[in-house]
């Protein structure tokens, strides 16, 4: 068994006949920091959603940490999202009614963790992303960069082995973007969490260990 993510001849065709992925075979080792690039419509988001258990392939298979993901089984997908994968979104997507700490502990709510343990872990992760002072702030009281830091803490809270980041700096200025990248890189190096980052910014992609490029649903490199 090898830790990491592999896909074999992955294909995705939507009901309306659009083919989003074609014969995609990629392998990402545990602890890698990988950029996934491509124009819009190239299939990047589809691939990410399939890897994260939010969507299912119509062909081929995904192997995460040596296990073939059974996309027909709801529990498997829920378990995958709960314990194995963390998401970071372009829009940050924090819950507006919850403060920073509550947002971070939100995923643990579905993991049967008691409240004290959750809060402790949330505060620890907030300190990791440098926001321990902002634990009680609501999302609209935070800057974009701070919100994305909270989102990173949230993605890490269940100790996933892989974080899928969909354009994590798309809504941030270049200085903040660089800070977020640096933070993700630190997390990657210190905690050996795999990162797969969708981006269309070549400069940011160059910070990554390597780049996987998709064009029209096919892997180029």
């Amino acid at each position, binding site marked *: 068994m090898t830790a990491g993510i592999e896909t074999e001849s992955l294909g995705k065709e939507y009901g309306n006949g659009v083919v989003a992925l074609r014969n995609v075979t990629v392998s990402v080792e545990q602890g890698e920091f990988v950029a996934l690039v491509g124009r819009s419509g190239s299939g990047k*988001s589809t691939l990410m*959603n399939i890897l*994260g258990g*939010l*969507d299912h392939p119509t062909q081929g298979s995904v192997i995460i940490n040596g296990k073939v993901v059974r996309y027909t089984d*709801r*529990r498997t997908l*829920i378990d995958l*999202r*709960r*314990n194995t994968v963390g*998401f970071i*979104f372009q*829009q940050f*997507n924090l*819950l*507006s*009614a*919850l403060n920073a700490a509550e947002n971070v502990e*939100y*995923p643990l*709510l*579905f*993991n*049967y*963790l*008691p*409240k004290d343990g959750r809060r402790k872990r949330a505060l620890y992760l907030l300190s990791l992303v440098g926001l321990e002072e902002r634990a009680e702030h609501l999302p609209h009281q935070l800057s974009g960069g701070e919100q994305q830091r909270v989102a990173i803490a*949230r993605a890490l809270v*269940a100790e996933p082995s892989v974080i899928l980041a969909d354009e994590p700096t798309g809504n941030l200025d270049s200085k903040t973007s660089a800070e977020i990248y640096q933070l993700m890189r630190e997390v990657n190096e210190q905690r050996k969490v795999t990162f797969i980052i969708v981006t269309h910014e070549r400069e940011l992609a160059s910070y990554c260990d390597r780049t996987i490029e998709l064009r029209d649903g096919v892997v180029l490199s």
Partner: protein
Amino acid sequence: MIVKEADLLRLSARQLVKKRLRVALTVLGIAIGVAAVIGIVALSDGIRYQAIETIRSQSDLTLIEVHPSTQDGVSQLITGSRVESLRSIPHVTGLSPAFTDSYSTRKQTFLQILAVDGNEIGPVLHLTLASGRMPEPGAPEVVFGADIKDKLQRNEGIRIGDVFMALVREYNETGMPVDRQVPLSVAGALTDRDDKFDQYVFIDRGTAVRIRGEDRGYDTVFVRVDDPDAVFAVVDSITAQGFTVTGAFEQIEAVNRFMDALLIVFMLFAAFALVVGGLMITTTMITSVYERTRELGITMAVGASEHDVIRMVLYECLLIGVIGGIVGDLVGLLFTAIINTVGKPWIIARLGPEFSTIFGSEIAKLSPAMMVAGLLIAVLFSLIAGIYPAIKATRMNPVDAIRGLQ
């Protein structure tokens, strides 16, 4: 597990606080439904209670009249052994077999005769003398009911202590009516009861048998029950023995039947209010689910199952239902209080002062059980109303939901 439920409930509560105006209006909707239901039940229960109390106080509820049931058009007279079988029914404290007959006066005033043991008129029938005394067993004496006493005194000058000629009609061999004259003395008169006993002329059973010259058995047995609440049970066991039973309890049955029918019709209208309240919850929750599509998508992305999402939506409905039920109960209390304070004088003014005693205490009676029922109804309707929005929340594609495409 408990931890998680409490967390989800807390989360749902926060969602409600966020949209408090909308929730308040929705709560009001379901509360009006609950108030309508419990208000109507309270009002009808109150009226039913007053009506039954009135019957209880104004009529002799514990006296049951047993008649032979008619089979194939022939009524079987009651024999002594069947009378004894009535005596063994629990709560029966006394009984008096009797038969009815009819005589007339010489001025052709119809006399409805009740031939009954003179010693049982007081203890069993609870009839009391206004004047005079009860008839002696075997003596040719009668006691008048209040109305017939007045009538005979006014029209024929027959008074207590007088002897008058009663005409007993018989038929000879050729079928011709022959009236035989029997002298009867008036031993006493009974107090006014406002029921059919006021019309009766009471005569000792043995005397009546002698007047007719034959013992034909009984056509009526009066049964006295010790407890008004036991009357219906006694009636049931007597009916089970094949008798026909009448009495004041029939008025209560009639009131109950009437109130039940009325209640069903009223409840139908109240149910409309509840359904409208439920639809308001559905609308509120559908809107809420639409607005939170992205949030619910993220929730699923971080590991919530469909089950979790359904519960999050249903918990919101549950809270709306609980609050709606409580508010509804309070509005219902207010409603009954208004009926009992403002409404009562108004209704009595419409009905006339003689009804003022009927509504002695309260018109509307709201019991704790009814308030609990109101709360449960609100919760039930809220949860039913939430099923569709809850399922809708799980039907979305998390990917599209997060992008805000749905």
